């Protein structure tokens, strides 16, 4: 067999079996043994496929795997995935799954925690390489795997490794994790990620508890309220001077892409939120634009004084808010922080104490990038249609670390994969197509 697609079809059962083996490893962040086993397993599988493989132990995280294999062209592609089972939304795994995971394979699906996020997508890339090597004896371009074992959503230990290992390669394309088929069964690719700056804003008050009858004394809850009110008005526009300066607005072409995005999940969101409306009563296209294209500021928590059910006649000792600025390219979190400080200072709220609790830089790859176009050509070959392009995604990721390489988020999951839920699964046909998509992407990229 010389056609890698055909090879995939012939060896598909073995690939699914290997994926099941990988899924069986209980690589939860709270199970270091499971994490180590998964890292060793992956290193072995990569080495067996001729990759120069480094399993790098890290002090404050789990091993980082870096594996490289040269290719027939000067094109270089890096696959970024993670081998820990995501549990960010759900917290620690149920005890019975902590050390033993048993994938369920039925006629059309493979079910297991971790298979949709991100073990399926990871192994599809390995199997694409496998099929290319088996049929052609070489890879069309240089391929590297950077495989994360994260402790938290954004891994603070990753940046120096990206600098040292990935940047010198000057990759032409980063294949990022995640890219589900939408509810209209169309494959999707996301090109960016929002960033964020998560702060605690604290208004200090008196050194002692003051009764509220002393109402000529400053009240930190008012200070905080007024300060927050100065950040954003009821029209949802952020009022911090210069907040929008660095925003790279969608091009006409990107705006056009928004029209293609499936919004049936938004209808469900509206229903489940039981509010009956989005902000400003927006609908359809406006909602999609706000979700993907608009930076924003959100109050995640407010805390001051007494929260109990009774009358407490006291001036709060302090008032705190957790405030999240969600950013789009090319806003920089610490630039936004400076601007917020200047804003508060100008309005006389200089006593507020701002603490940064988390941050991530937004990033968006240009849809016009030739290697993104290569991904699209590959999709036409595999799916018979180009992918639906999300110029951005609403969540954060560390895509920005790889700037200026374009990132394409593609995957083997679909809209109903239920990542992080007990019935997390992928469909086997999606897995087959996912492998072929990677094969075709490598081939198309090599031809750019």
């Amino acid at each position: 067999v010389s056609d890698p697609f055909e090879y995939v079809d012939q060896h598909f059962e073995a690939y699914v079996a290997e994926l099941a083996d990988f899924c069986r490893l209980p690589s939860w962040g709270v199970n270091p043994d499971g994490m180590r086993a998964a890292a060793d397993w992956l290193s072995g599988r990569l080495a067996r496929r001729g990759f120069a493989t480094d399993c790098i132990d890290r002090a404050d995280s789990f091993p980082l795997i870096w594996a490289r294999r040269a290719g027939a062209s000067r094109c270089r592609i890096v696959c970024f995935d993670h081998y820990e089972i995501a549990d960010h939304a759900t917290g620690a795994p149920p005890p019975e799954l902590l050390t033993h995971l048993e994938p369920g394979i039925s006629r059309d699906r493979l079910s297991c925690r971790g298979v949709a996020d991100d073990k399926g997508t990871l192994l599809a890339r390995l199997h694409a390489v496998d099929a290319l090597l088996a049929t052609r004896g070489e890879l069309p371009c240089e391929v590297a795997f950077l495989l994360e074992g994260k402790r938290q959503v954004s891994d603070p230990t990753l940046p120096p490794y990206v600098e040292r290992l990935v940047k010198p390669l000057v990759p032409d394309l980063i294949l990022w994790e995640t890219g589900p088929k939408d509810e209209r069964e169309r494959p999707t690719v996301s090109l960016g990620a929002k960033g964020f700056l998560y702060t605690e804003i604290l208004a200090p008050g008196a050194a002692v508890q003051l009764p509220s009858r002393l109402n000529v004394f400053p009240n930190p809850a008012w200070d905080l309220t007024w300060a927050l009110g100065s950040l954003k008005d009821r029209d949802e526009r952020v009022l911090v001077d210069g907040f929008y300066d660095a925003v790279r607005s969608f091009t006409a072409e990107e705006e056009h892409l928004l029209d293609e995005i499936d919004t049936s999940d938004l209808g469900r969101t509206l229903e489940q939120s039981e509010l009956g409306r989005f902000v400003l009563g927006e609908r359809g296209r406006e909602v999609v634009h706000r979700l993907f294209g608009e930076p924003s500021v959100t109050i995640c928590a407010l805390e001051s004084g007494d929260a109990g059910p009774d009358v407490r006649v006291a001036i709060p000792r302090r008032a705190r808010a957790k405030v999240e600025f969600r950013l789009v390219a090319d806003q920089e979190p610490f630039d936004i922080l400076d601007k917020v400080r200047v804003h508060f200072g100008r309005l006389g709220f200089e006593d507020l104490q701002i603490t940064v609790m988390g941050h991530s830089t937004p990033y968006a790859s240009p849809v016009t990038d030739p290697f993104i176009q290569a991904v699209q050509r590959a999709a036409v070959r595999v799916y018979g249609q180009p992918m639906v392009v999300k110029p951005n995604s609403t969540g954060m990721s560390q895509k920005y670390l790889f700037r200026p390489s374009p990132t394409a988020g593609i995957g083997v999951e679909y809209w109903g994969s239920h990542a992080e839920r007990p019935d997390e699964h992928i469909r086997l046909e999606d897995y087959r197509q996912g492998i072929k998509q990677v094969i075709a992407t490598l081939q198309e990229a090599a031809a750019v």
Partner: protein
Amino acid sequence: MNDIDRVEAYIDANFDRFLTEVQELCRIPSIGGDDAGMAQAERWLVDKYQRIGMRVEVLNVADSHPFVLGEEPGPPRSVLFWNHYDIANFTNPVVYPENAYERGPFSGDIVDGKLYARGSTDDKGTLLARVHAVEAWKAVTGRSPVGVKFLTVGKRTVAGPNWAQFLDAYHPLLGADCCIWEAGARDEQDRQVITLGHKGYLYVELVVPGTKRTWPSRYTILPNPAWRLTWLLGRLKGPDERVLIRDFYSDVRPLSEVSKTLTYDRLADDIGVLLEEAGLQSAILGISGHAAQVRLYTEPTLAICGLQAGLPGERMDLVLPPEARAKLEFRLVPDQDPLKILGALQSYLRDIGFGDVEVRVLGQSAPYAVEPDTWLPRLVMRAAERVYPEGAVFAPMAIGFGDRHQFHHWLHAPIVGFAVGYAGYRIETNEEHIRVEDYRQQTKWVAGILAQLARSGADCDSG
């Protein structure tokens, strides 16, 4: 030697015993809500009132500890003393120290002429000075110069029981020509203060509804109740401290010239001391001194007492809060009506697009003030001049809220207030104390007030 001289001599002669009794009552941990401690204090009072020959009735009051009513009949007229025997545990809850050498909340110790205990000034000392004044009169002349009623209240919560209900049931027992309340300590210049009223309040919780469950914060398209609360609060009051609710100020009683001369012009400036204790640089709007003091008495205000939305604590939670709440206190001055303010708030919220916000009333009481140039304030002031060489001053009102308005409404009698306290009394802490010499003077003052009441003519009957 006339009667009042003999009564004062009796007070001096029995002063150590009086103090021992103050210590006894102060050592009882009568914390509102603590049935055991409150019952112990109640028994102590019943016993004390009986021992000085008063008729005692224990009134069982819904949602409250029993009230102790002590009564001494006597023409030609009568006075109702309003006090409480709980230790006002509402702002700073009682804390027992970890170390034995630190002062506990109920020590009752007398050190350097100061008697220490939570509740010593508010309100046990203030109460017993009145009881001892009556006791002195009875010991010296065999009777009190006027009829006396002691209503001794045991609160469970800061708001107390449903006063309208209580007064509806008991006002026939409480009838009197005037009423002496319990607020008014010595001021920063150590002048005894007579409070002519107190503020009112309306305490509400606002609940801004949001999504029924918690959504990830990446859903920037979902309405966020914490923002709506923030915007709403900003529409209630801005940094200029002016309450923006329509008609909020319309019922504020204008300051009369007489009132200004008799009260505001004589106010001491104790804001500086309070600021220092609180570790604060300045009062709101940068005001200080007399201006701050006048504002403290005259301005109705709106305070945020609590804010809550989302998950508290140090975690970075990327979520939208499903609900946001604020606890708000409107502190009112005469003649604002809390229920009218509530109505104004509700219609204002509707007008500015927040009609879906739930307004829960957690407490309310109306303000009250008697004008200084009327008979009771004049009489009490006259009595003060005998005891306090430096004189007393009127404060337009106590800045705390109270229930004088309700009592005035049911009893149709004027009300003034004062207490055994001074600017350094550290109220509601373990260091709360009274100065024993203040206690002596106040006991004599009350004795003098009783004498004045017996003597005074038609003006006190004119209401």
